[in-house]
């Protein structure tokens, strides 16, 4: 049990997927102009992460045992079809949510956090329960990073900035400061 708690805290804070492991940076920089969209995208990502964790674990345990070289190809196909299925299901059963998420839902496919999760859980030999906890931690960590970044960018938007800082340069420096803050959690210990 303490092992599960540690995996959760470690992925959420100490090894935050976005700010420390550098996964899912495209959405981190691309979709963090507004807090509301950032928040929703984070939760949609968490859901896909959970599905991927389960799918990748099943594939890895029962199918890919003797063909490890097919892992990358198999995982990306699982991710792509998983996102497609989620998109269809959400569209049919939750049309309001579907409209709110818009283009961000299909874009989750090319989010490296999803494939990264599948690869990391394989490399660390997680059991199914551990993998699911890992996915929840990663998803909430992603949501946390996205919302933090979006709140800061909303303030920057109304501030009087020099011309050269109005593009991505400043956003990256802000990300650096956020990342530095998360490095502080490293004192809690290293990854299992």
């Amino acid at each position, binding site marked *: 049990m303490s092992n599960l708690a540690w995996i959760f805290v470690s992925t959420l804070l100490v090894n935050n997927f976005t700010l420390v492991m550098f*996964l899912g940076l495209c959405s981190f920089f691309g979709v963090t102009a507004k807090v509301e969209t950032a928040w929703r995208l984070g939760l949609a990502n968490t859901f896909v992460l959970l599905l991927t964790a389960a799918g990748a674990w099943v594939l890895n345990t029962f199918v890919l045992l003797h063909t490890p*070289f097919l892992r990358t190809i198999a995982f*990306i196909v699982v991710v792509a079809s998983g996102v497609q299925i989620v998109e269809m299901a959400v569209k049919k059963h939750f049309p309001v949510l579907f409209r709110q998420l818009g283009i961000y839902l299909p874009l989750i496919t090319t989010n*490296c956090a999803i494939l990264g999760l599948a690869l990391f859980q394989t490399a660390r030999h997680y059991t199914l329960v551990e993998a699911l906890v890992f996915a929840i931690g990663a998803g909430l960590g992603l949501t946390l990073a996205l919302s933090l970044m979006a709140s800061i960018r909303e303030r920057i938007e109304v501030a009087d900035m020099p011309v*050269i800082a109005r593009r*991505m340069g400043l956003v990256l420096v802000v990300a650096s400061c956020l990342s530095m803050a998360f490095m502080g959690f490293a004192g809690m210990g290293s990854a299992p």
Partner: protein
Amino acid sequence: VTTATADQATLMPGAPPPASVAADIWRGIVRENPVLVQFLGMCPTMAVTNTLANGIAMGLATAFVMVGAGLVVSLVRKYVAHEVRITTYIVVIATFVTLADMILAAGFPVISKALGPFMPLIVSNCLTLGRAESFAAKVGPVRAMADGLGMGLGFTASLALLSAIRELLGRGSLFGFDVFGPRFEPWVFMVMPPGGFLTLGIALLGLAWILELRRRRAEVLA
């Protein structure tokens, strides 16, 4: 250039205007540099640029994948149905990534270990899929390979620049060889995650500053 404009560019319908092979290669290296201008492929840019050798290995592996995937995507472009094209491109890219991964693991086991899961993660690098969709799927095999080579080399150049700065300041060495001597106190921050964001951020601020100076000078002259 924000990501929004990059998205518009990759979603533009129709084939790119005709150009020579040299122009196709050169465009990716300078004017549409993937990292510094288009802002694509951020994850490996940050994650593996803590030493120069890692940065260059990642860049060249990406270039290999882009040339190979460009060739195959361009060859099958007339036979792939519109609805399944993205999946097809991803599977093609994943195949070449697996190849690159195995070659690296066999030839350079140390670098392969250092890159770890970021090697297979080339699959979900938005740069590879973006160029397959916006360029390779619309032109002949020679131009597709030229574009892949140019973008790959441009990517390598940016990664080499960033990782050289980070390794020099963070470890006081280049390619693992000591540069500053034993009295240099390494700025460890630069090889840690925040240093990656900071280095690229300052590089982009510097680039924006130079462009702004140039624009002002042109205004004064006009």
